[in-house]
Structure formats: C-alpha cells, structure tokens
C-alpha cells in the first residue's frame, strides 16, 4: 500500500521557512524586465500623440496644443504598445508596479 505518499515532502517542509512573504511589511522582490508602471521622460516628449492613438485601452490623453501628457493609471494594462511606438523612446515600463491608486484621476505631466 502506497499510503501517505507525501510524508517525505511534508516532513522536509516542516523545518523550512515559508515561501510566502509578509507583504506589505516586506516589499515584493522586483523582477528585472517585468512590465510594471509606465514612466514618461516628459522633457523628451514631442507630443506627437502617437501613444495616445495606439493605446488599446485609451489610457493616455495627449494634448498637442497645450503640451500636456496625461495617463489614467487604472486603465493602463502595462502592455507596452506605447513604448514600442514612441518615436522619441521617452516611455518606459518600470519593473515595479507602483503604489495602489485610490482615486480615478488622470495623472498629468
């Protein structure tokens, strides 16, 4: 009878530290290359509105006339399409996911 086949694994793990972390007290380890929060280097932006046109979730709103670049963080799905199309390469997706958003306001740059 192969009964309680898991005993070895369970015994081994009884003496190990848990793999879960005590988030939020211990911050999450950031994985390099992860697609997280969208960052803009606004000094390089030429307000061409290409990112605004291409964003699949309409999270961006670029105002060419007033030179305003706005993002709705709750809509952005961190897909990276805007990063790809930006002619000035001023957009990046950082590895961290930012702090939680509590209001539905657009962030303006």
């Amino acid at each position, binding site marked *: 009878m*192969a009964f309680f086949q898991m005993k070895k694994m369970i015994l081994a793990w009884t003496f190990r530290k848990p793999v879960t972390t005590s988030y939020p007290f211990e911050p999450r380890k950031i*994985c390099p*290359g*992860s*697609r997280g929060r969208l960052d803009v280097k606004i000094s390089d932006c030429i307000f061409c509105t290409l990112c605004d046109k291409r964003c*699949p979730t309409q999270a961006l709103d670029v105002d060419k006339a007033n030179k305003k670049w706005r993002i709705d963080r709750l809509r952005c799905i*961190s*897909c*990276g399409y805007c990063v790809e199309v930006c002619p000035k390469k001023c957009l990046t997706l950082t590895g961290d996911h930012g702090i939680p958003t509590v209001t539905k306001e657009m962030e303006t740059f």
Partner: protein
Amino acid sequence: MGHRTIIPFGPQHPVLPEPIHIDLVVEDEKVVEAVPSIGFIHRGLERLVEKKDFVEFVYIAERICGICSFIHGQTYCQGVEEIMKIEVPTRAKYLRTIWGELSRIHSHLLWAGLMADGFGFESLFMHSWRVREQVLDIIEATTGGRVIFGSCKVGGARRDISPEQMTWMLKQLEVVEKEMRLIVDVFMNDDSVKHRLCGVGVISKADAISLGAVGPTLRGSGVADDMRLLKYAAFGELDFAPISRTDGDSYSRCAVRCDELFQSLDIIRQAAAKMPTGEIAVKVTGNPSGEFFSRVEQPRGEVVYYIKGNGTKNLTRFRARTPTFANVPALVKMLAGCELADVPVLVLTIDPCISCTER
C-alpha cells in the same frame, strides 16, 4: 424508481471559482442526468473585433483566458500571419514554442492544485502552487508578465530571451522538475488519491470521439491526437509524440497531464538547444484579406480561431472555439451515473476554464 431531486451546482461553487451552472438530477446519491448552462460572462468579442485594429487585437485575444493567455495570442497571430502570408523568423517560432510549453506547465500545475483541492488534499494543493510560482517567475523574467505574457505579436515576438537568461531558465527548470516529480508521485501512486480517481467518470474511446472531446480528455481515452502534430511554430523540428492513456477514467486524464508536464520540459530543452540566432520579428505592412481557421493545442486541448478580414485594418469576423467548450458534452456524459460526491472531481478532470468558454 427512486425520488428525483434537482441539485444546482454553480455558478458559485467552492471547487470552481468560475461560473458554470449544472443542474444535477439525482436519485438518492446517484446523478442520473446533468444539464449544463453557460453564458454568465459573455464578453462579445465578435463585436469588439470590428472596432479594434487587427494588430491591437492580440492584446484582447490574450485576455480571453487568464491561464492559456499566451497560446490564445499565438493562435490569433498565427491565423493573421497565415492570411497575410507573413513568414515569421525561425527564432520567433522557437520563442513561441518555449513560452507555449511554459504556459502548459504552469497551467497543468494550476490544475494539479485545483484537483488536489477538489478531492480535499490541501497540502498537495499548496505544494503544486508553490512549484507553479517558480514557473511564473521564469515567465516573468523572460516575458515581463506573470500571467499575461504579452510577448507575441503579429509577425513574430516582442521580446527575445538572451543566452544568459536561457541558461538561468534551464537551471531553474531542473529545480522545478525535481519538485514536480515529488508532486506527480503523489498523484500517481498515493492510494487515497487513486481511490478517488480510478474507474471514476469513464469515457470510452468511441464516446470521446463522437462527443468531440479534445486535449487530455480525449488522450485519456486512448486517442493520441494533439494539435502540435500540425507542426505549427517549431514543432516540425522537434521530437514530439502525443501522450495517451487507454482507461478513459479520471486517473487516465490525470496521468496524461502529469506526463505532459515532463514532456513540455523536454520540448523546452530541445527548443533551447536548437534555437537559431537572428531576427525575432518582421515588419507587418498591409491589412489582412481572407479567412483562416487557426488550430493550436492549449493545455486543455485544441483551440480553434476563425479569422476573416476584408482588407481593412479591422477584422470582419472572429470566432474562438475553446477546448472547455468542446469538453462540456463529454463532461455531461461522465456525470450521468456518477456519485454526487464525485461531481467536483469529475468537473475538474476536464480542467474547465469557463471564462475561455464564454469568450
């Protein structure tokens, strides 16, 4: 004839956090009939496709399912590429193969956990998901997303895996393999697990074929059919033979999935060894005009995409037939005649993904 009662299963049920509703007609403790109803989370993709650019639609295709996300994107891209006659670089095909198999491993481990939870084996559930987490870490490091990979695009891949990353990935996968062996050993050899699975929910070979079952449900009944035999992506150059079992019971379906874990590892290793260098994407110009049925093997079975374009940037028709949808008739057949207590286990043996089914 005993007294008949109807017991509703779902749309909210502890074993399945997804909305499928099954009316179980029971006589004492025996299920005599099961009447499924789906459609709780229909998302109307057929309409959405007419509004989105065909290049952008890959993001939506990926979000049809939260588990086979990459393969949905891949199926869509392969379909569009076929219509537009785009020759994808070989390296991109290999990358797609590797990510597709990684997603199969994480999906099967997820299923293993749910299954263990379904028959009440909590610690096995947690350990399965602990191992899955390591696979997700590999996925995050190589694609940038844990669940939504976002690395497939029409014309190739968005990201490349560097040689250092590849070495690291293969090393990590060795650790994962060792851990998976321990988990699979419990699934395959523990008597209390076997007691719940052996001889339960038998689907004969003829039934599996006539009911149109796909994936491990079909292969568990002795039909060695797998869409990877169509040699899409890099499968034409890799050594691959579908895994099948002949008993057709829950244990067979489990065994198929357990074996596929290691087969996927093997495919990743082969692909990593054979991967050529070069471009990962080609530029896409023009719009798709024509129609195509794209078929790819997901962790749950064959997914079929029908894509039709008329030369504009929006597609005119898009339809996805997901594996769970094809497996529901087989599930209904399995449920008739089973014990009421076996219902959760049987539902889980087809590895249902209801959100996929509804599209």
